Protein backbone atom coordinates (compact mmCIF):
# COMPACT_ATOMS: atom_id res chain seq x y z
CA UNK A 1 0.00 0.00 0.00
CA UNK A 2 1.23 3.49 -0.68
CA UNK A 3 0.45 4.66 2.84
CA UNK A 4 0.02 1.80 5.22
CA UNK A 5 -0.75 4.17 8.10
CA UNK A 6 -4.34 4.61 6.89
CA UNK A 7 -6.52 1.53 6.94
CA UNK A 8 -9.09 0.95 4.23
CA UNK A 9 -12.07 1.67 6.56
CA UNK A 10 -10.37 4.92 7.68
CA UNK A 11 -9.81 5.89 4.10
CA UNK A 12 -13.44 5.28 3.20
CA UNK A 13 -14.52 7.26 6.24
CA UNK A 14 -12.30 10.21 5.33
CA UNK A 15 -13.63 10.26 1.76
CA UNK A 16 -17.16 10.36 3.14
CA UNK A 17 -16.11 13.36 5.23
CA UNK A 18 -14.99 15.23 2.11
CA UNK A 19 -11.23 14.81 2.62
CA UNK A 20 -9.66 15.44 -0.83
CA UNK A 21 -6.29 14.06 0.26
CA UNK A 22 -7.97 10.80 1.18
CA UNK A 23 -9.47 10.65 -2.31
CA UNK A 24 -6.02 11.11 -3.84
CA UNK A 25 -4.64 8.44 -1.54
CA UNK A 26 -7.39 6.03 -2.50
CA UNK A 27 -6.65 6.43 -6.19
CA UNK A 28 -2.90 6.04 -5.67
CA UNK A 29 -3.39 2.99 -3.52
CA UNK A 30 -5.67 1.04 -5.82
CA UNK A 31 -5.11 2.23 -9.37
CA UNK A 32 -2.40 -0.30 -10.20
CA UNK A 33 -4.61 -3.25 -9.36
CA UNK A 34 -7.73 -1.74 -10.95
CA UNK A 35 -5.86 -1.25 -14.21
CA UNK A 36 -4.91 -4.94 -14.27
CA UNK A 37 -8.48 -6.11 -13.63
CA UNK A 38 -9.65 -3.97 -16.53
CA UNK A 39 -6.78 -5.06 -18.73
CA UNK A 40 -7.51 -8.70 -17.98
CA UNK A 41 -11.20 -8.38 -18.92
CA UNK A 42 -10.96 -6.01 -21.88
CA UNK A 43 -7.53 -7.04 -23.22
CA UNK A 44 -7.17 -3.46 -24.41
CA UNK A 45 -4.65 -1.15 -22.80
CA UNK A 46 -6.15 2.20 -23.81
CA UNK A 47 -9.68 1.10 -22.96
CA UNK A 48 -8.40 -0.16 -19.59
CA UNK A 49 -6.91 3.25 -18.86
CA UNK A 50 -10.17 4.95 -19.77
CA UNK A 51 -12.26 2.61 -17.63
CA UNK A 52 -9.82 2.98 -14.76
CA UNK A 53 -10.65 6.67 -14.53
CA UNK A 54 -14.33 5.87 -14.71
CA UNK A 55 -13.99 3.27 -11.94
CA UNK A 56 -12.57 5.85 -9.58
CA UNK A 57 -15.11 8.50 -10.53
CA UNK A 58 -17.92 6.06 -9.70
CA UNK A 59 -16.20 4.84 -6.53
CA UNK A 60 -15.55 8.32 -5.21
CA UNK A 61 -19.04 9.57 -6.01
CA UNK A 62 -20.46 6.64 -4.09
CA UNK A 63 -18.08 6.99 -1.13
CA UNK A 64 -18.70 10.73 -0.88
CA UNK A 65 -22.43 10.25 -0.58
CA UNK A 66 -23.20 6.88 1.03
CA UNK A 67 -20.98 4.93 3.45
CA UNK A 68 -20.08 1.35 2.58
CA UNK A 69 -21.96 -1.25 4.57
CA UNK A 70 -18.65 -2.89 5.45
CA UNK A 71 -15.80 -0.39 4.93
CA UNK A 72 -13.19 -3.13 5.38
CA UNK A 73 -14.40 -4.45 2.04
CA UNK A 74 -13.38 -1.30 0.19
CA UNK A 75 -10.97 -3.20 -2.16
CA UNK A 76 -13.71 -5.72 -2.98
CA UNK A 77 -16.12 -2.87 -3.74
CA UNK A 78 -13.63 -1.17 -6.07
CA UNK A 79 -12.74 -4.47 -7.78
CA UNK A 80 -16.42 -5.20 -8.39
CA UNK A 81 -17.00 -1.70 -9.78
CA UNK A 82 -14.12 -2.21 -12.20
CA UNK A 83 -15.41 -5.62 -13.25
CA UNK A 84 -18.93 -4.31 -13.84
CA UNK A 85 -17.63 -1.46 -15.96
CA UNK A 86 -15.39 -3.70 -18.02
CA UNK A 87 -18.11 -6.28 -18.61
CA UNK A 88 -20.62 -3.56 -19.60
CA UNK A 89 -18.05 -2.08 -21.96
CA UNK A 90 -17.43 -5.46 -23.56
CA UNK A 91 -21.16 -5.87 -24.15
CA UNK A 92 -21.32 -2.40 -25.68
CA UNK A 93 -18.31 -3.19 -27.84
CA UNK A 94 -20.00 -6.32 -29.15
CA UNK A 95 -23.08 -4.30 -30.04
CA UNK A 96 -20.96 -1.59 -31.69
CA UNK A 97 -19.27 -4.23 -33.80
CA UNK A 98 -22.58 -5.37 -35.21
CA UNK A 99 -24.19 -1.91 -35.44
CA UNK A 100 -21.46 0.19 -36.98
CA UNK A 101 -19.00 -0.05 -39.79
CA UNK A 102 -15.21 0.14 -39.46
CA UNK A 103 -15.12 3.81 -40.47
CA UNK A 104 -17.41 4.78 -37.62
CA UNK A 105 -15.25 3.06 -35.06
CA UNK A 106 -12.16 4.73 -36.44
CA UNK A 107 -13.77 8.15 -36.07
CA UNK A 108 -14.35 7.77 -32.36
CA UNK A 109 -10.88 6.40 -31.63
CA UNK A 110 -8.72 8.65 -29.47
CA UNK A 111 -5.51 9.45 -31.34
CA UNK A 112 -3.49 10.17 -28.19
CA UNK A 113 -4.50 6.94 -26.54
CA UNK A 114 -3.66 5.04 -29.71
CA UNK A 115 -0.22 6.60 -29.81
CA UNK A 116 0.45 5.80 -26.13
CA UNK A 117 -0.70 2.27 -26.66
CA UNK A 118 1.50 1.87 -29.70
CA UNK A 119 4.52 3.14 -27.74
CA UNK A 120 3.76 0.72 -24.89
CA UNK A 121 3.34 -2.26 -27.19
CA UNK A 122 6.43 -1.35 -29.14
CA UNK A 123 8.48 -1.16 -25.95
CA UNK A 124 7.07 -4.50 -24.79
CA UNK A 125 7.87 -6.12 -28.13
CA UNK A 126 11.39 -4.80 -28.01
CA UNK A 127 11.91 -6.15 -24.48
CA UNK A 128 10.47 -9.55 -25.44
CA UNK A 129 12.75 -9.67 -28.50
CA UNK A 130 15.80 -9.05 -26.31
CA UNK A 131 14.75 -11.75 -23.87
CA UNK A 132 14.33 -14.27 -26.68
CA UNK A 133 17.69 -13.28 -28.15
CA UNK A 134 19.38 -13.74 -24.80
CA UNK A 135 17.88 -17.14 -24.06
CA UNK A 136 20.39 -19.78 -25.18
CA UNK A 137 17.92 -22.66 -25.16
CA UNK A 138 15.37 -23.07 -27.94
CA UNK A 139 13.32 -25.13 -25.50
CA UNK A 140 13.06 -22.15 -23.12
CA UNK A 141 12.13 -19.82 -25.96
CA UNK A 142 9.48 -22.30 -26.99
CA UNK A 143 8.13 -22.39 -23.42
CA UNK A 144 7.66 -18.63 -23.44
CA UNK A 145 6.05 -18.49 -26.87
CA UNK A 146 3.67 -21.35 -26.21
CA UNK A 147 2.71 -19.99 -22.80
CA UNK A 148 2.47 -16.24 -23.44
CA UNK A 149 1.34 -16.26 -27.04
CA UNK A 150 -0.63 -19.44 -27.53
CA UNK A 151 -2.01 -19.81 -23.98
CA UNK A 152 -1.25 -23.51 -24.04
CA UNK A 153 -1.80 -25.53 -20.91
CA UNK A 154 1.35 -25.68 -18.81
CA UNK A 155 1.09 -29.44 -18.25
CA UNK A 156 0.95 -29.96 -21.99
CA UNK A 157 3.98 -27.76 -22.62
CA UNK A 158 5.93 -29.56 -19.90
CA UNK A 159 5.05 -32.94 -21.38
CA UNK A 160 5.89 -31.93 -24.92
CA UNK A 161 9.21 -30.37 -24.00
CA UNK A 162 10.16 -32.95 -21.38
CA UNK A 163 10.51 -30.56 -18.45
CA UNK A 164 9.00 -30.57 -15.00
CA UNK A 165 6.76 -27.84 -13.60
CA UNK A 166 9.51 -26.33 -11.44
CA UNK A 167 11.75 -25.86 -14.49
CA UNK A 168 8.81 -24.38 -16.37
CA UNK A 169 8.16 -21.90 -13.55
CA UNK A 170 11.82 -20.93 -13.43
CA UNK A 171 11.78 -20.06 -17.14
CA UNK A 172 8.72 -17.84 -16.66
CA UNK A 173 10.08 -16.27 -13.48
CA UNK A 174 13.39 -15.33 -15.07
CA UNK A 175 11.69 -14.00 -18.18
CA UNK A 176 9.37 -11.80 -16.12
CA UNK A 177 12.26 -10.49 -14.07
CA UNK A 178 14.34 -9.75 -17.15
CA UNK A 179 11.35 -8.17 -18.89
CA UNK A 180 10.83 -5.72 -16.02
CA UNK A 181 14.54 -4.85 -16.01
CA UNK A 182 14.38 -4.13 -19.73
CA UNK A 183 11.32 -1.91 -19.40
CA UNK A 184 12.83 -0.10 -16.43
CA UNK A 185 15.97 0.59 -18.45
CA UNK A 186 13.84 2.11 -21.16
CA UNK A 187 12.23 4.33 -18.56
CA UNK A 188 8.74 2.92 -19.02
CA UNK A 189 6.94 4.01 -15.96
CA UNK A 190 3.39 4.98 -16.66
CA UNK A 191 2.49 8.47 -15.52
CA UNK A 192 -0.22 8.77 -12.96
CA UNK A 193 -3.06 9.77 -15.24
CA UNK A 194 -5.63 9.53 -12.54
CA UNK A 195 -4.65 12.37 -10.28
CA UNK A 196 -6.30 14.55 -12.93
CA UNK A 197 -9.75 13.34 -12.02
CA UNK A 198 -9.42 14.76 -8.54
CA UNK A 199 -8.79 18.34 -9.61
Amino acid sequence: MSDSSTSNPDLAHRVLGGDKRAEAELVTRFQKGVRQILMRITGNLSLAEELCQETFIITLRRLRSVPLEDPSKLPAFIAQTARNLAIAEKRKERRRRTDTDGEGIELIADATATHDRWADVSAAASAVRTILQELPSERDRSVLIRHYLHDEDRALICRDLGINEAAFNVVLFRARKRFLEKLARRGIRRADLFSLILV
Partner: protein
Amino acid sequence: MSRADDDLATAASPAERYAAGRMGDEEEREFEVSMLERPDVASEVDAIHRMRAGFRELQTRGELEQLLHRSRTRVRPFALAAGIAALAVGAAVLLYSSDFHRLPTALATSVTDFGRPLSPPSHVVSFLVARTRGGREPTAITVSNPSEIIALQILPSVPSKTPTYRITLARMKNDTATPVARDIEARTGADGFVRVYVEPANLPDGVYRLSVLQPASAEHFAIRISRPR
Protein backbone atom coordinates in the same frame (compact mmCIF):
# COMPACT_ATOMS: atom_id res chain seq x y z
CA MET B 1 19.64 -16.51 -7.65
CA SER B 2 19.28 -16.34 -3.89
CA ARG B 3 17.50 -19.08 -1.99
CA ALA B 4 14.42 -16.88 -1.62
CA ASP B 5 14.51 -16.26 -5.36
CA ASP B 6 14.85 -20.00 -5.96
CA ASP B 7 11.70 -20.69 -3.97
CA LEU B 8 9.84 -17.94 -5.75
CA ALA B 9 11.05 -19.04 -9.14
CA THR B 10 10.06 -22.69 -8.87
CA ALA B 11 6.58 -22.01 -7.46
CA ALA B 12 3.69 -21.59 -9.87
CA SER B 13 2.73 -17.93 -10.02
CA PRO B 14 -0.95 -17.18 -9.36
CA ALA B 15 -0.43 -14.00 -11.40
CA GLU B 16 0.35 -16.16 -14.46
CA ARG B 17 -2.83 -18.16 -13.96
CA TYR B 18 -4.87 -14.99 -13.47
CA ALA B 19 -3.52 -13.27 -16.57
CA ALA B 20 -4.12 -16.42 -18.61
CA GLY B 21 -7.73 -16.61 -17.38
CA ARG B 22 -7.16 -19.98 -15.76
CA MET B 23 -8.81 -19.27 -12.41
CA GLY B 24 -12.33 -20.13 -11.35
CA ASP B 25 -14.73 -17.23 -10.65
CA GLU B 26 -14.32 -17.26 -6.90
CA GLU B 27 -10.54 -17.60 -6.98
CA GLU B 28 -10.36 -14.84 -9.56
CA ARG B 29 -12.34 -12.43 -7.40
CA GLU B 30 -10.22 -13.22 -4.35
CA PHE B 31 -7.09 -12.72 -6.38
CA GLU B 32 -8.34 -9.35 -7.65
CA VAL B 33 -8.98 -8.11 -4.13
CA SER B 34 -5.51 -9.23 -3.05
CA MET B 35 -4.08 -7.49 -6.12
CA LEU B 36 -5.73 -4.24 -5.07
CA GLU B 37 -4.20 -4.54 -1.64
CA ARG B 38 -0.75 -5.53 -2.87
CA PRO B 39 0.80 -3.37 -5.58
CA ASP B 40 3.64 -5.90 -6.02
CA VAL B 41 1.11 -8.49 -7.21
CA ALA B 42 -0.45 -5.93 -9.54
CA SER B 43 3.03 -5.17 -10.93
CA GLU B 44 3.57 -8.85 -11.66
CA VAL B 45 0.27 -9.09 -13.52
CA ASP B 46 1.11 -5.86 -15.37
CA ALA B 47 4.42 -7.36 -16.52
CA ILE B 48 2.62 -10.46 -17.78
CA HIS B 49 0.02 -8.43 -19.69
CA ARG B 50 2.77 -6.38 -21.30
CA MET B 51 4.79 -9.49 -22.17
CA ARG B 52 1.77 -11.02 -23.85
CA ALA B 53 1.27 -7.82 -25.83
CA GLY B 54 4.95 -7.92 -26.79
CA PHE B 55 4.73 -11.51 -28.02
CA ARG B 56 1.59 -10.72 -30.05
CA GLU B 57 3.31 -7.74 -31.61
CA LEU B 58 6.37 -9.80 -32.58
CA GLN B 59 4.12 -12.42 -34.12
CA THR B 60 2.28 -9.73 -36.10
CA ARG B 61 5.62 -8.45 -37.37
CA GLY B 62 6.60 -12.00 -38.36
CA GLU B 63 9.71 -12.02 -36.15
CA LEU B 64 8.87 -14.88 -33.82
CA GLU B 65 9.89 -17.89 -35.85
CA GLN B 66 13.30 -16.45 -36.53
CA LEU B 67 13.77 -15.61 -32.85
CA LEU B 68 12.73 -19.11 -31.85
CA HIS B 69 15.17 -20.85 -34.16
CA ARG B 70 18.08 -18.44 -34.15
CA SER B 71 21.43 -20.05 -33.60
CA ARG B 72 23.80 -18.68 -31.02
CA THR B 73 26.53 -16.48 -32.38
CA ARG B 74 30.05 -15.93 -31.12
CA VAL B 75 30.49 -19.46 -29.77
CA ARG B 76 33.94 -19.97 -28.32
CA PRO B 77 35.99 -22.88 -29.72
CA PHE B 78 36.28 -24.59 -26.33
CA ALA B 79 32.55 -24.32 -25.74
CA LEU B 80 31.94 -25.59 -29.25
CA ALA B 81 34.15 -28.66 -28.69
CA ALA B 82 32.49 -29.35 -25.34
CA GLY B 83 29.10 -28.95 -26.96
CA ILE B 84 29.93 -31.39 -29.75
CA ALA B 85 31.20 -33.93 -27.21
CA ALA B 86 28.05 -33.54 -25.14
CA LEU B 87 25.93 -33.91 -28.24
CA ALA B 88 27.76 -37.08 -29.24
CA VAL B 89 27.22 -38.59 -25.79
CA GLY B 90 23.61 -37.48 -25.84
CA ALA B 91 23.02 -38.94 -29.27
CA ALA B 92 24.59 -42.24 -28.24
CA VAL B 93 22.42 -42.38 -25.16
CA LEU B 94 19.38 -41.56 -27.27
CA LEU B 95 20.17 -44.16 -29.89
CA TYR B 96 21.01 -47.04 -27.61
CA SER B 97 19.00 -46.61 -24.49
CA SER B 98 16.08 -44.29 -24.93
CA ASP B 99 12.45 -45.05 -25.31
CA PHE B 100 12.53 -43.02 -28.48
CA HIS B 101 14.70 -45.67 -30.15
CA ARG B 102 12.26 -48.36 -29.20
CA LEU B 103 9.25 -46.48 -30.52
CA PRO B 104 7.73 -48.15 -33.57
CA THR B 105 7.49 -46.49 -36.95
CA ALA B 106 3.75 -46.08 -36.57
CA LEU B 107 3.70 -42.66 -38.29
CA ALA B 108 4.97 -41.98 -41.79
CA THR B 109 4.60 -39.61 -44.69
CA SER B 110 4.40 -42.47 -47.18
CA VAL B 111 2.97 -45.99 -46.95
CA THR B 112 6.28 -47.38 -48.20
CA ASP B 113 7.97 -46.11 -45.03
CA PHE B 114 6.33 -48.92 -43.08
CA GLY B 115 8.48 -51.39 -45.05
CA ARG B 116 5.85 -54.00 -45.72
CA PRO B 117 3.95 -55.03 -48.79
CA LEU B 118 0.55 -53.51 -49.22
CA SER B 119 -2.26 -54.11 -51.63
CA PRO B 120 -3.55 -50.65 -52.45
CA PRO B 121 -5.99 -49.13 -52.43
CA SER B 122 -8.18 -51.33 -50.25
CA HIS B 123 -5.79 -51.38 -47.31
CA VAL B 124 -5.51 -47.61 -46.97
CA VAL B 125 -8.43 -45.94 -45.26
CA SER B 126 -8.61 -42.13 -45.20
CA PHE B 127 -9.85 -39.90 -42.41
CA LEU B 128 -10.11 -36.14 -42.23
CA VAL B 129 -8.71 -34.50 -39.10
CA ALA B 130 -9.70 -30.86 -38.64
CA ARG B 131 -10.78 -28.43 -35.98
CA THR B 132 -14.57 -28.05 -35.92
CA ARG B 133 -16.96 -25.69 -34.16
CA GLY B 134 -18.81 -28.62 -32.70
CA GLY B 135 -16.59 -29.47 -29.76
CA ARG B 136 -13.74 -31.64 -28.72
CA GLU B 137 -14.96 -35.11 -29.55
CA PRO B 138 -12.06 -37.20 -30.87
CA THR B 139 -12.09 -38.18 -34.54
CA ALA B 140 -13.35 -41.78 -34.51
CA ILE B 141 -11.23 -44.25 -36.46
CA THR B 142 -12.44 -47.81 -36.72
CA VAL B 143 -9.82 -50.34 -37.76
CA SER B 144 -11.76 -53.10 -39.42
CA ASN B 145 -8.88 -54.86 -41.15
CA PRO B 146 -5.82 -55.79 -39.05
CA SER B 147 -3.43 -55.08 -41.91
CA GLU B 148 -4.87 -51.76 -43.03
CA ILE B 149 -3.07 -48.47 -42.93
CA ILE B 150 -4.79 -45.24 -41.97
CA ALA B 151 -4.29 -42.10 -44.00
CA LEU B 152 -4.93 -38.93 -42.04
CA GLN B 153 -5.64 -35.74 -43.93
CA ILE B 154 -4.94 -33.03 -41.40
CA LEU B 155 -6.14 -29.49 -41.88
CA PRO B 156 -4.09 -27.23 -39.55
CA SER B 157 -5.96 -24.15 -38.28
CA VAL B 158 -2.97 -21.90 -38.82
CA PRO B 159 -1.02 -22.26 -42.06
CA SER B 160 2.68 -22.85 -41.47
CA LYS B 161 5.13 -20.17 -42.52
CA THR B 162 7.80 -22.82 -42.77
CA PRO B 163 7.43 -25.64 -45.30
CA THR B 164 7.19 -28.43 -42.75
CA TYR B 165 5.32 -29.48 -39.65
CA ARG B 166 6.55 -31.90 -37.01
CA ILE B 167 3.92 -34.54 -36.32
CA THR B 168 3.82 -36.52 -33.11
CA LEU B 169 1.49 -39.23 -31.88
CA ALA B 170 0.89 -40.01 -28.22
CA ARG B 171 -1.55 -42.23 -26.37
CA MET B 172 -3.71 -40.43 -23.80
CA LYS B 173 -4.43 -42.18 -20.56
CA ASN B 174 -5.50 -40.50 -17.31
CA ASP B 175 -4.60 -37.12 -18.82
CA THR B 176 -1.06 -38.31 -19.52
CA ALA B 177 0.38 -38.42 -23.02
CA THR B 178 2.77 -41.28 -23.82
CA PRO B 179 4.54 -41.14 -27.20
CA VAL B 180 3.75 -44.20 -29.30
CA ALA B 181 5.53 -43.38 -32.54
CA ARG B 182 8.66 -41.71 -33.74
CA ASP B 183 8.10 -38.06 -34.67
CA ILE B 184 8.05 -37.25 -38.36
CA GLU B 185 8.34 -34.17 -40.54
CA ALA B 186 5.49 -33.63 -42.98
CA ARG B 187 4.74 -31.02 -45.61
CA THR B 188 1.49 -29.32 -46.57
CA GLY B 189 0.10 -30.46 -49.89
CA ALA B 190 -1.14 -28.10 -52.60
CA ASP B 191 -4.67 -28.58 -51.25
CA GLY B 192 -3.69 -27.31 -47.79
CA PHE B 193 -3.82 -30.73 -46.12
CA VAL B 194 -0.95 -32.39 -44.32
CA ARG B 195 -1.05 -36.11 -45.13
CA VAL B 196 0.39 -38.68 -42.78
CA TYR B 197 -0.06 -42.43 -42.50
CA VAL B 198 -0.60 -44.40 -39.33
CA GLU B 199 0.19 -48.09 -38.91
CA PRO B 200 -2.43 -49.14 -36.31
CA ALA B 201 -1.13 -52.70 -35.82
CA ASN B 202 0.76 -51.76 -32.64
CA LEU B 203 -1.72 -49.21 -31.40
CA PRO B 204 -4.30 -50.59 -28.97
CA ASP B 205 -7.83 -49.20 -28.86
CA GLY B 206 -7.97 -45.84 -27.10
CA VAL B 207 -7.62 -42.10 -27.45
CA TYR B 208 -4.50 -40.65 -29.05
CA ARG B 209 -3.19 -37.14 -29.41
CA LEU B 210 -1.94 -36.16 -32.82
CA SER B 211 0.16 -33.01 -32.52
CA VAL B 212 0.95 -30.76 -35.42
CA LEU B 213 3.87 -28.61 -34.39
CA GLN B 214 5.12 -25.49 -36.04
CA PRO B 215 8.18 -23.58 -34.92
CA ALA B 216 6.15 -21.16 -32.83
CA SER B 217 2.97 -23.06 -32.12
CA ALA B 218 1.35 -26.41 -31.57
CA GLU B 219 -2.04 -27.78 -32.49
CA HIS B 220 -3.41 -30.96 -31.01
CA PHE B 221 -6.11 -33.24 -32.39
CA ALA B 222 -7.69 -36.13 -30.54
CA ILE B 223 -8.36 -39.37 -32.37
CA ARG B 224 -10.01 -42.48 -31.04
CA ILE B 225 -8.87 -45.81 -32.46
CA SER B 226 -11.21 -48.74 -32.02
CA ARG B 227 -11.77 -52.16 -33.52
CA PRO B 228 -15.13 -53.83 -34.06
CA ARG B 229 -15.83 -56.52 -31.43
